């Protein structure tokens, strides 16, 4: 069965410092993986996705994520946090041949001035 675990429910960083949001997945076969961002009172916006091409995926707003099969991880990173990055981030896994998208419980990122 597929599952996804976001290891931190809350992360606080200072503006200008690196961001690391952790995601581990469980899947029997090659998954597709996504990161979405949700700003307050807004819908979810796609940041980036991995679908078995390059393992390092670059997304919007300077975010990137690396697919590590050996560690079953898909952590989201950004070299330098900006105040506008404060939001909730969701890691999502889906399995080829199915319609199910499994969402993590979310990580709330706080950026301190």
């Amino acid at each position, binding site marked *: 069965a597929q599952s996804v675990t976001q290891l931190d429910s809350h992360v606080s960083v200072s503006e200008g410092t690196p961001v690391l949001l952790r995601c581990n997945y469980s899947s029997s076969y090659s998954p*597709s993986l*996504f990161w*979405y961002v949700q700003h307050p*009172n*807004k*819908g*979810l*916006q*796609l940041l980036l*996705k991995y*679908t078995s091409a390059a393992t390092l995926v670059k997304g919007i707003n300077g975010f990137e994520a690396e697919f590590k099969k050996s560690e079953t991880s898909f952590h989201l990173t950004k070299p330098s946090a900006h105040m506008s990055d404060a939001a909730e981030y*969701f890691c999502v896994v*889906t*399995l*080829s*041949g*199915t*319609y*199910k*998208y499994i*969402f*993590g*419980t*979310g990580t709330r990122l706080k950026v301190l001035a």
Partner: protein
Amino acid sequence: GAGVSQSPSNKVTEKGKDVELRCDPISGHTALYWYRQSLGQGLEFLIYFQGNSAPDKSGLPSDRFSAERTGGSVSTLTIQRTQQEDSAVYLCASSLSTPYGSSGNTIYFGEGSWLTVV
């Protein structure tokens, strides 16, 4: 349309009343999803449509909840006899679909319908 459109954006209703939430997916997207997000919580899957059919309704919380989709496009989520615990954001999403399912395809979300039951 350019994106997934949901209406109403906000709805306050009295306990016991029925509500209808509408979703207009991206043109050409055959897969449509409804999710619920309660305050401070993650996303709860409600129902999946492929065209006008709903092969998976397993997430609907009770028989007060129903959904339909017509013309392979617009979907309506109906909540009958609303309860306070129904207060949440209801998110609709759509994606392209392949013979192998929708996986790997990006799902695009609307802004949500914020329901408050008083």
